[in-house]
């Protein structure tokens, strides 16, 4: 991978995951934040809520990042309304996922509206709604930036969003096959550029023993950021391994008369 940071991507390390720290980091990262918020009556915050994983796994957005965004909008906007959108995913409906991830409580505490945006259903939004896309940093071949927008707005993603879109990657925790406390945020005005960047960032993690914490938030290069990710502990493609193991175990069961564990029982052996 080219370790040079694209000129249209801005990444910042943060010393901790405190709400105030992230609020400042998000504001510093989005170069046109003031003009973005000035033109907006309503901001739809879009965390990754595809399944109720704990945020420390890096599989979903950390609610502290969403709370930081709520407070940033409230502080810098002029009566701008905040909407927290929960999409859920293939195996979790938006209400269940949003509630378990803490967004019902967060919306109430931050005086924000909570919207459930079921995947595959078209949701209507009022005029003047802008989108702050807050995906997590997770190994995903199509990129979590684009994936999060497609869940909310359909296959056209950003093109079907109700208004202008800014994306801020929540890298406080990441998942590369192994959870990481990676402590960064990254953003770009160009959604596609940010999406490509995060896919490439996670494509070749290095083998590190631990991450040196920073004492204050600062900009970070792609090269430096890449060196902070550990290699994945997972071996092989889980779906392929599971299918092979399931079929193998069922064959073994037929040969020996042994019982088959329930997780391997339900498959098609032709």
């Amino acid at each position, binding site marked *: 991978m080219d370790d040079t940071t694209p000129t249209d991507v801005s990444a910042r390390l943060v010393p901790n995951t405190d709400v105030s720290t992230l609020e400042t980091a998000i504001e510093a990262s989005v170069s046109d934040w003031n003009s973005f918020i000035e033109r907006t009556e309503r901001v739809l915050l879009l965390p990754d809520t595809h399944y109720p994983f704990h945020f420390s796994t890096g599989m979903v957005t950390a609610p502290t990042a969403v709370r930081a965004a709520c407070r940033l909008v409230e502080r810098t906007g002029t009566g701008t309304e905040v909407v927290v959108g929960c999409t859920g995913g293939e195996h979790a*409906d938006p209400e269940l996922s949003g509630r378990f991830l803490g967004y019902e409580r967060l919306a109430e505490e931050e005086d924000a509206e909570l919207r459930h945006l079921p995947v595959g259903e078209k949701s209507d939004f009022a005029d003047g709604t802008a989108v702050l896309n807050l995906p997590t940093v997770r190994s995903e071949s199509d990129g979590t930036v684009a994936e999060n927008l497609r869940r909310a707005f359909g296959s056209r993603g950003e093109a079907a969003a109700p208004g202008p879109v800014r994306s801020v990657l929540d890298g406080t925790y990441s998942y590369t096959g192994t959870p990481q406390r990676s402590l960064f945020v990254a953003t770009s005005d160009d959604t596609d550029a940010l999406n490509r960047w995060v896919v490439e960032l996670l494509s070749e993690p290095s083998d590190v023993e631990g991450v040196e914490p920073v004492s204050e938030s600062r900009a970070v290069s792609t090269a430096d950021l890449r060196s902070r990710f550990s290699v994945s502990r997972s071996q092989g493609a*889980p779906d392929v391994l599971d299918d092979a193991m399931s079929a193998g175990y069922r064959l073994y069961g037929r040969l020996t008369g042994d*019982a088959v*564990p*329930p997780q391997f029982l339900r498959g098609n052996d032709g």
Partner: protein
Amino acid sequence: MSALELGILGLGNIGTVHLQSAQRLPGVRVRAIADASAENRTLARKLGVSRTYTDYEDLCEAETLDAVVVALPPFLHADAVEAAAERGFDAFVEKPFATTSDEATRMIEAAREGGVSLGVDHTIRYQPGIRRMKSEYDAGHVGHVPLATISRINNGPFSAPPVSHSPSGWQFDPNATGGGALMDLGVHLFDVVEWFFGEVSVEYATVDRQLDLDFEDTASVVLESADTGTTTTLNCGFFQWEEPPDVNMRFQLDGITDSLENSSFAPSNFPIHAATSASKNVVKRLRGDDPDYFGPTYYYRAHYDALGAFCEASAAGEEPPVNGETGRRMVELVEEAYAAADFDPRE
């Protein structure tokens, strides 16, 4: 001697373990299963059970049985046991035995009136490592044990990635489950602790939630045994990814002369253990012998042994080794722990 005629009520994951175990237990015949899911009934037929019902009440009404396995969600245990007891069927009940101790009392009363016996699938005491520890402890090989720790942590109703299924709604309703991690996992651990050290009292308990659930997914309890003077710290949780055969179940005894822990007796490398055990089973089969059932998985064997012990007792007209009173006692301990933590999952 005629076979013990068995019905399986509920064919979710644990129901399929019991079905396959029962099909391999000597002197046991599975007559029928009941499950509301068409997919599960299809699986039952694939596994060789032709008589399937949508409703367990219909199964109990139509079949002449000696016993049933109740592998239904906890909120259905009481009704299922009453249905079985009215017809003179012994019942082997999944844990938790009941969602409340009052419900457990109702089940025990129904069994007494029906002249039937109740067993409970408190499996952990049947795990090979735990049995080895019990032998070593009973033989005095670690001396007096002032301190013990026991823990069981899994992912509860959730999946580890890659996610393959949506969790069922009832699993998030504490009125249907009886509670959270304490009721689902803690009951097993309380059973092991009392099996080792006799009756315990709850000295302290605390609960927590890592996700915004209606019940606890994290719990810690301190138990005191008056008989042995052992203080046990019990932890359980629904917050960790788990993929069988790797199971996060830890039991450690810190005795005067030595410490014992269950992991010392478990395979150090599960893939190698599975391959070795499977190879041995192939050889056994070629010789015409029965395999070591569930051998490659290591942990599922405990369910086979627990059901086997119940069926043996049922066939002999004897009280099962882990009976309804034990099941009720474990639910009572969970309720005591909730009270000590000043937490009621049903509120």
